[in-house]
């Protein structure tokens, strides 16, 4: 056991810190610091900045632009990025579809898609959830029927973030409705969103945003060459995708930055109001525990015990993130009502309520807290 980073890792960290704080454009980092929405252009520009330095997709195979980093180094990379207000690489590209294509795609698919995915020449959307298939994803009904060299896709996806920006969408579709298990008849299909029959309808959320969507497929013809891996094995690839990336799942970096900012916003109240100070102290201690746990997972300290899986990090991390946004909302008080720029309020009070409401989703998407508890009970405790 040791507390300190190895000299190599300390150098590694210093290098990244230098890079993130000096090479990533200031406008992007300020937008993140102010908890405001990034534009698509900013997200793309940020990721290309990282890509130019070769650190956009360290989790990918080296052949396709990845890094041979240790898990701890990946953790450091992610935390330094968060601390420096650098937006993490576009998830759909970097953490979701990229690794799946790299692992299961054909050579042709890799060459066609991976470089473009890394540079965000293609913005990917995720087409998994459906109106009747949320936590119970295997209930999905969107169908893909083979017709000559194409699949014909019909159905509806929902909760598709940033589908407005989407050039392509990776989807789970039902290719064998008669499969003995619901999971067995599902395939992983890449769909060009400019194909005829694809329609995107934004969903307005209570946080004021409209960046999640419904995506409708009506007789959409998709070349069979866009099937990833084998037909009817999509469930395996989806499980790979969902279980793949544990770095950053606890959201510790962002929570930590926000809690530190909140101290500034609290100002003198932090000294004058013991109940407020206790709230900060409690959250800070909870945060430290979650961060240390995420380091333990990253460092993969085996020690013969069942490891706290990513489920623990997702569960505890999202609840903590929510608690900190709630603290900030409480600091804003009645000022928090003024989410409208016309209120002329400081950015942090203006964004307090929308961010609080936005983060209510943290315990719902990406495997709800209920799903995580089920995984812990089943997989770790054997219940």
């Amino acid at each position, binding site marked *: 056991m040791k507390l300190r980073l190895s000299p190599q890792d300390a150098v590694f960290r210093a290098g990244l810190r230098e890079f993130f704080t000096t090479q990533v454009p200031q406008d992007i980092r300020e937008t993140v610091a102010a908890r405001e929405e990034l534009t698509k252009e900013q997200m793309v520009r940020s990721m290309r900045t990282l890509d130019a330095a070769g650190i956009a997709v360290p989790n990918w195979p080296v052949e396709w632009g990845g890094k041979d980093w240790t898990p701890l180094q990946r953790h450091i990379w992610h935390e330094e990025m968060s601390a420096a207000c650098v937006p993490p690489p576009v998830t759909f590209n970097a953490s979701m579809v990229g690794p799946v294509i790299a692992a299961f795609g054909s050579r042709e698919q890799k060459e066609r898609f991976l470089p473009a995915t890394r540079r965000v020449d293609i913005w990917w959307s995720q087409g998994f959830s459906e109106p009747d298939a949320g936590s119970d994803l295997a209930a999905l009904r969107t169908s893909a029927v083979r017709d000559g060299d194409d699949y014909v896709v019909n159905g509806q996806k929902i909760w598709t973030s940033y589908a407005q920006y989407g050039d392509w969408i990776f989807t789970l579709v039902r290719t064998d409705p008669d499969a003995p298990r619901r999971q067995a008849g599902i395939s992983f299909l890449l769909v060009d969103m400019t194909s005829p029959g694809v329609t995107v309808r934004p969903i*307005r*959320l209570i946080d004021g945003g409209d960046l999640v969507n419904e995506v409708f497929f009506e007789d959409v013809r998709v070349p069979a060459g866009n099937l990833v891996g084998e037909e009817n094995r999509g469930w395996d690839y989806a499980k790979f995708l969902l279980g793949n990336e544990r770095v950053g799942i606890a959201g510790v970096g962002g929570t930590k930055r926000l809690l530190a900012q909140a101290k500034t916003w609290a100002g003198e109240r932090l000294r004058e109001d013991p109940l407020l100070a206790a*709230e900060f102290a409690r959250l800070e201690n909870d945060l430290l525990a979650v961060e240390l746990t995420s380091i333990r997972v990253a460092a993969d300290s085996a020690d013969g015990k069942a490891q706290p899986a990513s489920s623990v990090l997702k569960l505890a991390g999202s609840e903590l993130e929510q608690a900190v946004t709630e603290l900030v909302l409480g600091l804003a008080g009645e000022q928090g009502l003024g989410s409208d720029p*016309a209120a002329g309020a400081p950015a942090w009070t203006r964004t307090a309520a929308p961010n609080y*409401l936005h983060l209510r989703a943290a315990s719902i998407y990406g495997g709800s807290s209920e799903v995580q508890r089920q995984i812990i009970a089943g997989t770790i405790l054997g219940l």
Partner: protein
Amino acid sequence: MDFDYSDEQRALREAVRALLGKTYATIDGRRAATAKDPGFDEAVWSRLAEMGVLGLPFPEEAGGMGAGPVEVAVVAEELGRVLAPEPFVEAVVLCGGLLARADADVSAIANGTVLPAYVGGPGVTARRDGDLWVLDGGASPVLNGARADLLVVVADVDGTPALFTTAQGERTAFATYDGGRAARVTFDGTAAGPIGDPAADASGTIAYARACAQVAYAHEALGAMERALEMTRDYLRDRHQFGKPLKAFQNLAFRASDMYVCLELARSMALWASLVLQDGDEAEGVEAASRAKLRAAESGRRIGQEAIQLHGGIGLTMEYGVGHYAMRLTTIEHLLGNRRHHLAGLAAAVSDHRGVDPLR
């Protein structure tokens, strides 16, 4: 001691429910009303005036109906149930309450021709300017401050608060995150009329009017909690996942049970606080209001958050209703003192009594 509504109170509830039901039967009603200025439905407001609701707590000689805090609670709860955006609590209970206590004329509020807005906070001062009083400074957010015909202003006069009204003041309108409207109000030597003696300390009057509004908010929150729980219950009953209704998942059903416990605790406390206000002792009323507001905030927070979580993604959409309930509960939680504010106040006084005895 009893918690039964009288026949008249029941009739009032039915009448208000029927009136609001015409416009706010579904969440689309609220969405339509809040989509455009002034953020509520003027026609509904007029009908509330016709029904006498806008003069409910005012003395009859002042154009009101001479009703008490329990009747106010009945109305507030109905508003909360359908998330009606009409500013009953702000205009009638808070502003009207302040003016009525100072024997000012509130008939125009009661008949709906004047909409007042409350300008509180520490940012306004008043000074004499010749024979006149003028205001300086400002406040934000002033709920419905742009639409308001009259501002009821708490202003500092030589270190103590006093009350003024003015129809002027610069207003910058903005929308609030829950669909409402507010304004940033600024005064710069703005002429204003004193309510009562401006040299006298109005703290007590203000605290009592705020208490009345806190209790009304607790009831508005109660209505919203009740409806949010109903929606959640229906969703758990009707929605299926993994081949069975959600209610078959014990964890979800138990959480709905806990929401119910929260609801009933908040209901008991809000009803009681109304009765304490009705009973007349001001200091007791102020303390009871703080207790009810704290309880409403805790229950409302839990119920709003759980209503969303138990719904999943749909609970976060503008189209579906339950997210609006959570938003409104969040707003109320932070109006007129949030949880920490009320808890700190009660904590500071906790040594002053051996216990709290509600049976008297």
